[in-house]
């Protein structure tokens, strides 16, 4: 057990180093629900459980968009949440990033033809990374965050 333990820490350390290179210390993510069915929230919550434990890489889910480097948006952006999403986006400091998570957030999904929904986050705020899935598995979310890191590295 101890052998694989230390190995895990080394590998985890590489990801941590990469985050440190790109962002200085850690990546703070704010989740904004713009009308999802709460399955995406369940998966984001699963990221912080001991199984996926993203905090070991210095990835934090923070309480306010003001603390965040990136917002993870779920849901097709309902008419009623549009203002909340735009305000959250504006509250973030530059450089900022928007990650659209789940099919609803990418293009509206099943709710494309609804009177009370936009067709995805892209209609309201500019999106940098798309994570497909309905809902995306925790592994898919982690991979999406890594894609976001790559983008940041290039920007730098």
């Amino acid at each position, binding site marked *: 057990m101890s052998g694989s*333990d230390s190995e*895990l820490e080394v590998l*985890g350390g590489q990801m941590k180093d990469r985050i440190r290179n790109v962002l200085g210390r850690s990546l703070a993510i704010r989740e904004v629900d713009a009308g999802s069915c709460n399955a995406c929230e369940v998966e984001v919550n699963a990221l912080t459980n*001991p199984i*996926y434990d993203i905090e070991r890489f210095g990835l934090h889910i923070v309480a306010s968009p003001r603390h965040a480097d990136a917002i993870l948006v779920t849901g097709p952006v309902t008419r009623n949440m549009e203002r909340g999403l735009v305000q959250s986006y504006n509250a973030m400091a530059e450089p900022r990033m928007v990650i659209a998570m789940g099919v609803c957030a*990418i293009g509206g999904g099943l709710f*494309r033809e609804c009177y009370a929904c936009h067709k995805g986050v892209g209609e309201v705020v500019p999106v940098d990374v*798309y994570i497909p899935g309905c809902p995306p*598995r925790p*592994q898919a979310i982690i991979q999406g965050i890594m894609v976001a890191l790559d983008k940041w590295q290039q920007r730098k």
Partner: protein
Amino acid sequence: MKVTNLFRFYRLGVGKRGVVTTRYPNGPAELPAAAQCAPELTGKCDACGHCAEACPTKAIAVTTSKFTIDLGDCIYCGECARGCPKGSIVMGKNCELSARKREGLEVSYDVRQ
């Protein structure tokens, strides 16, 4: 009194589970055998269009030369795989599909008859 009980629990190893953390992203994503991710075209296709009709989010477009699936619309429901008369569509196991561009989510296959 009760507090000491609690410590006794921990000393006995109650609640100790060993390492449960997955190796991902440093190892491969270990999904169960039955897990369904995005559909993939693996076999022959005669562009009959049954899959496109079956899709609830209209994520599939089939022409005589190309089979295109927009993963940004796919809800992994498996209707296309069930609707394919040739059984050529299977639900894949790859969940690492994120993209930086909306177009990057479109996957095309050449139609082989």
